[in-house]
C-alpha cells in the first residue's frame, strides 16, 4: 500500500476533458514531479486531490483510504497540504499568523477554552507559537515573523506558503509551481529547500514545475500531462528521451 494512490482519475468541465485516466503512486519521502505545457491539467489534478473539485471518475487513496468527496479541510486533516500556483497567503496577516492558521487543526480546545483562557488553551497557544517560530527559522523566515505577509518579497511569500502548509503536519505536500517568478539564484536555493523538507519532515512531495532543469535535477520520477492525458511516466532520463514529450512540451518555448 502506497502513501498516496491515484487511479483512473478523470474530470470533465462542461465538455472539456480536463483530466483523463490519471494514475500515480507516491511513497513516503519520495519526490515526484508533474510537468506539462500550460493548460495541461496539472493544477486541476491538485485541485481534485485536495477536494476543491470532485472527480468525474476514479479514486484517490491516502494510506489506503479513499478521500474522494471529502471537503478540503478534511483532506488536509488526513495529511495532504498544498501551495498555490498564484500565491494565496493570508495577505493582511502577519507571517507568524499565517503559520499559526496552519496549526489550527491541531487545537484540542473549543471556543470556551479560548474565551476563558484555560490552561489547555494557554499551553496549546504557547506551544504552537514556539513551533511556528521554529518552522519559520527552518525556512529562513524568522526575521520576518512580524511582517505583514503581502509586504514580503515574492520569493519569501512562496516560502511562507510552504511553511504554512508544513504547519498542518502533512504526510503529502503538493507544490504548485513553487519556483514561478524566481530568479536563477532563488531557484537553486529552492531546490535545496525542497530537498531539505523531504528529508527533515519525511513527507512525500509532489511537485508541479515549469523549470525543466529544476525538475530534472530533484525529482525521482515524473509524469507528463498534455491536454489532460498522461503522455509519459518515468525517471527524468526516460522522460527526456520520450519523443512525445519533446513534441508536446520540450519543443515548445517555455
Amino acid at each position, binding site marked *: 500500500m502506497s502513501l498516496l494512490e491515484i487511479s483512473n482519475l478523470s474530470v470533465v468541465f462542461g465538455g472539456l476533458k480536463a483530466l483523463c485516466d490519471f494514475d500515480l503512486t507516491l511513497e513516503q519521502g519520495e519526490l515526484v514531479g508533474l510537468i506539462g505545457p500550460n493548460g495541461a491539467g496539472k493544477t486541476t489534478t491538485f485541485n481534485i486531490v*485536495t477536494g*476543491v473539485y470532485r472527480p468525474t471518475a476514479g479514486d484517490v487513496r491516502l494510506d489506503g483510504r479513499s478521500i474522494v468527496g471529502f*471537503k*478540503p*479541510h478534511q483532506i*488536509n*486533516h488526513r495529511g495532504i*497540504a*498544498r501551495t*498555490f500556483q498564484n500565491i*494565496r*497567503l*493570508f*495577505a*493582511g*496577516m*502577519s507571517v*507568524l*499568523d499565517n503559520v*499559526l*492558521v*496552519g*496549526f*489550527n*487543526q491541531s*487545537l484540542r*480546545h473549543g*471556543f470556551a*477554552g*479560548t*474565551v*476563558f*483562557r484555560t490552561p489547555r*488553551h*494557554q499551553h*496549546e*497557544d*504557547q506551544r*504552537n*507559537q*514556539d513551533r511556528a*517560530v521554529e518552522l*519559520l*527559522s527552518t525556512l529562513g523566515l*524568522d*526575521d520576518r*515573523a*512580524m*511582517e*505583514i505577509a*503581502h*509586504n514580503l518579497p515574492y520569493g519569501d511569500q512562496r516560502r511562507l506558503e510552504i511553511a*504554512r*502548509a508544513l*504547519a*498542518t503536519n502533512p504526510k503529502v505536500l503538493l507544490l504548485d509551481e513553487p519556483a514561478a517568478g524566481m530568479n536563477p539564484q532563488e531557484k537553486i536555493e529552492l531546490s535545496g529547500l525542497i530537498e531539505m523538507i523531504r528529508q527533515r519532515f519525511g513527507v512525500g512531495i509532489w511537485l508541479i514545475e515549469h523549470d525543466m532543469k529544476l525538475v530534472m535535477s530533484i525529482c525521482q520520477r515524473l509524469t507528463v500531462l498534455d491536454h489532460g492525458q498522461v503522455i509519459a511516466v518515468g525517471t527524468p532520463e526516460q522522460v527526456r528521451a520520450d519523443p512525445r514529450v519533446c513534441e508536446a512540451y520540450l519543443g515548445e518555448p517555455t
Partner: protein
Amino acid sequence: MSVNALTFRRLPQLPVWVINLALTAILAGLWPLGRVLEHQLNPYFLQILILVGINIMLAVSLNLVNGITGQFSLGHAGFMAVGAYAAGVLLRHYQPQGWEIPLVMLGVLCLGGVLAALAGLVVGIPTLRLQGDYLAIATLGFGEIINVVIINTESVGSFYVGGSAGLHGIPIHANFFWTFGAALICIVCVWRLAYSNKGKAFAAIREDEIAAGAMGVNTTYYKVAAFAIGAFFAGVAGGVSATWFGNLDPESFRFMRSIEIVAMVVLGGSGSITGAILAAVVLTWLPEQLRAVQEWRLVIYALVLILMMIFRPAGLLGNRELWPIPGRRRPGPSPTADPDSRQRMMA
C-alpha cells in the same frame, strides 16, 4: 533564533488568573460605579451613556462577523430584535419583584442571546454559502422577515407581544451595571477569540477562504460560529435596550438600524475591536449633539462617512488596535495607503 522572534515570545505578560481576577473585579466594580453615576449624572447624559454601551456591544459583535471574519451581514438589528422581544415579553409577563430581579435579568438576557444565536444558526447555515453581496441581501431579508413576524404577532400563548403597536410597559431594570457589564463581557469574548490561535481562523477566512480550507480550517463551522456568537451579543444588547427603554417598536429594528451598526464597524476600521468601540461612542454621541439641527442630522452623519471614505478609507484604526498586541506589528506602509486593501474595503 532572531531577536525579533524572542521579543514577541516574551510578550504574554501577566498570568491569566491575574487578568481574569482583574476583569471580574472590574465587572463587580461596575455595580457601585453605576449607582454613583446614576445619582450624579443628569438623566439625559445617562441615557446617552447607556446607548453608547448598547451600541458598543452591537458594533463589537458585528465586527466579529463583518470585520474579522469578513462575512458582510446586514441583519444585525434582526438578531437584536429577537433578544429584545424575548427579554421584553418575558419581563413584562413575569414582572419580577425584589430579590428576583437580578436573577431574572440574568436569565432573560442570556435567553434573549441564546434565541438570537439560534436565529443566527438558522440564518447562517443556509446563507453562509453565499458570498459578498448575496450574503448581504439574504441577511437584510432576514431582518425584514423578523420585522414582519413581530408586526403580525399579537401574542404567543399567554405572552403578549404587541404586534404592530409595539410592546409597552416592560419593567425597567437595566442600568449602568447591566449595560456595561454585558458590553465588557462581549468585548473580552470577541477580543480573546480574535487574538488567539483558534481565532486566527476567522481572519484567515476573511483573507482567503480557499486557502483557509486547504490549511485545514473548517470554514463553514467558523463562519457559522462567528455568526452565532455575533448574534448572541446582538440579542443581549437587544434585551438590555428593551428593559432600559421599557418600550419596543418593531420599526426600530429594521435595516436602517443594521446600517447604523455597519457604519460603526466601518468607521472604526473593519477588524479593529477598539476601533469599533471608538466608532460606537462617536456615532452615538454625535447624532445626539446634532438633535438641535434635526433636519441636518442625517446629512452630517453621511458627511462623516463620506469624509472617512476619502481620507481614511480603512476606517479610523484600519485593522489595528489602539495599542500594539502580541503577534502583530504595525505594518510599515499603512494599509490606508495600499490600493489592495482599499479595494478589499470597497468589496
